[in-house]
């Protein structure tokens, strides 16, 4: 039968958490650095600006005229994403219940 193992392995005595880092992950640990994480937003913001700037150098042919507005997809993507995320607050208030809301979830076989 397929069941998950419990619980997760915690560091053994005398070892730090970093001793258990997978060898493949080690060369990429800089990605988890606090400064890199903080700079991510600026990097992506800059990349977005570049992609918008590209609209001034290439002609995008769309099916609809509004597709051809400069930066249309960037604006639409940002607004859509923000709307979806921000709607999460009222939706969670409306539909969120405790984990034990359905009695079966706490039944122990």
């Amino acid at each position, binding site marked *: 039968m*397929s069941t998950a193992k419990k619980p997760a392995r915690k560091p053994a005595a005398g070892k730090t958490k970093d001793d258990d880092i997978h060898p493949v992950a080690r060369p990429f640990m800089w990605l988890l650095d606090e400064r890199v994480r903080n700079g991510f937003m600026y990097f992506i913001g800059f990349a977005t600006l570049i992609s918008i700037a590209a609209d001034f150098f290439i002609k995008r*042919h769309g099916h609809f005229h509004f597709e051809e507005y400069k930066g249309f997809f960037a604006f639409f993507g940002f607004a859509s994403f923000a709307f979806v995320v921000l709607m999460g607050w009222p939706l969670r208030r409306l539909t969120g219940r405790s984990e034990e809301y359905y009695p079966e979830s706490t039944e122990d076989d």
Partner: protein
Amino acid sequence: MTELLTMPINPAWAILLGGLMIAALPWHNARKAVMLIAPAVALYFWLKMNAYGDFSHLSIDTLGATLTTFRFDGLSRIWGLIFIIATFLNAIYALHERDRLQDSMSVLYGGAAMAAVFAGDLITLFIFWEITALTSVFLIFRTGTAAARNAGLRYLVMHIGSGVLLLAGAVLLHAQTGSWAFEHIGLEAGLAGWLILIGFGIKAAFPLLHSWLQDAYPKATITGTVVLSAFTTKMAIYALARGYAGTEILIYIGVVMALFPVFFAVIENDLRRVLSFSINNQLGFMVVGIGVGTTLGINGAAAHAFADVLFKGLLFMSMGAVLLRTGTVKASELGGLFRSMPITAFFCLIGAGSISAFPFLSAFVTKALILAAVADEGHWIVWLFLVFASAGVLEHAGIKIPYFSFFAHDSGRRVKEAPWNMLLAMGIAAFLSVFIGVNHRWLYALLPYANDYEPYSLGHIVGQMQLLLAAIFAFALLMRLGWYPSEKRMTILDIDWFWRKPGKALGKWVYAIIARLWAYSKQGLDKSLTGLSSMLATMLSPDGNFSRTIPTGALAVWAAALLTLALLGVYMAG
């Protein structure tokens, strides 16, 4: 002998036979070997059929009907291939498990889905439609919890119901047309068309009929969820493409399907449930393509179904590996697993990029077909909604899944990387997702209709990158501002609340009323029976009235009165 070798063979039989063998074989290694060999044999038959071209003549006459059990044409061909690939990947993914029931059911389930896709008539379709339900439910039951058992029962009710609607519609259709053939049905078939559409719609998780998916899939076993994600819903998409291409209502149903899950996925804490919402969302795109019904629309639905089996399977596989190693897929309890499971994280990122439609990954070349088909028909509002839904896909499947499990804050969990077989299955799925993205002509050549659409224009790449980069920027900004809803342990209610809470309460109330009425009527019946028996005893017992000696004179008077009454009755009637 030569005829036997060249005889067309339905690839599904190789899988179904394999499933039966796995159920019977007592040796673990032999069972695993059959799990791998069966799809390989099916692929051989598929390649042979592909060399033949269209084929739809394998018919049998039974019960007064001609059943076409094997139809290999442009539409069924691509679904058959992806089901073979999925069966193979699932077998690799499950190599570490020792569970005969689950192994056999997952293979039989894949074979039944394939047989349904190759069915040329509605009876054959119905039979395999129901077998998919009966076999797949064990993948949910096998988790062994009360929640899984109850979810499995709800799943079974919905899916058996879907089959019953299909059968009822097929019988009505046969009464109208005299044929069992599974061709275009459409809503012009009247009640029959509606019944079959709803039957298909249950399995395709249409809005309001969808809750079985988010209810059952996250409660299935680790490999069970991966297997389930491949077959049922894609089989339903095939059935819609075959029977309802160009049915306009599907455009609007598909838009709702693509839209509503993205909102629920944001607040869902169980990452396998997030992916279940994601299935619903991607199915929406396919349903829209079918609703548009042009050759480009059907091609788009077929191509996206093919790609979805791979990238969605890949995402479920990565979450399955996380569940296996950590014991949870709750976003609130994960984070930082990249340190322990970097290879799984990498494959998960490929899946996330594929579903988000990054250039050179699979959905970029498949979703574009659907959007182009919608735009070609001038449905600009539908088109805008689908682009909106694409940003939503990036949120839940592109960012939320990898970010909250492998990155985000470090949960401190240090676990082993996924088993080699899981990594291999993920690696193949990831490779195919990239391969399709780069070699889109290979996939386009498999589509039902000739396709000269070119997704790689500079304008398309720039537009898509704008959408994705700006959406990722929105994520980073909202996280920085603290406006992103934090992950919390909770139950998110869905449409099934109506039958799991008030519906259940109503059922209990009705049961109590019926029980009381029964008790009351039983009491009344008992009283009546007691009265009747005492009356009969009074009349017929040795001491009863009929045994009494009645004076002859009185008897004669009574007899005369009764005869007079009878005479009057006859006279009046005459």
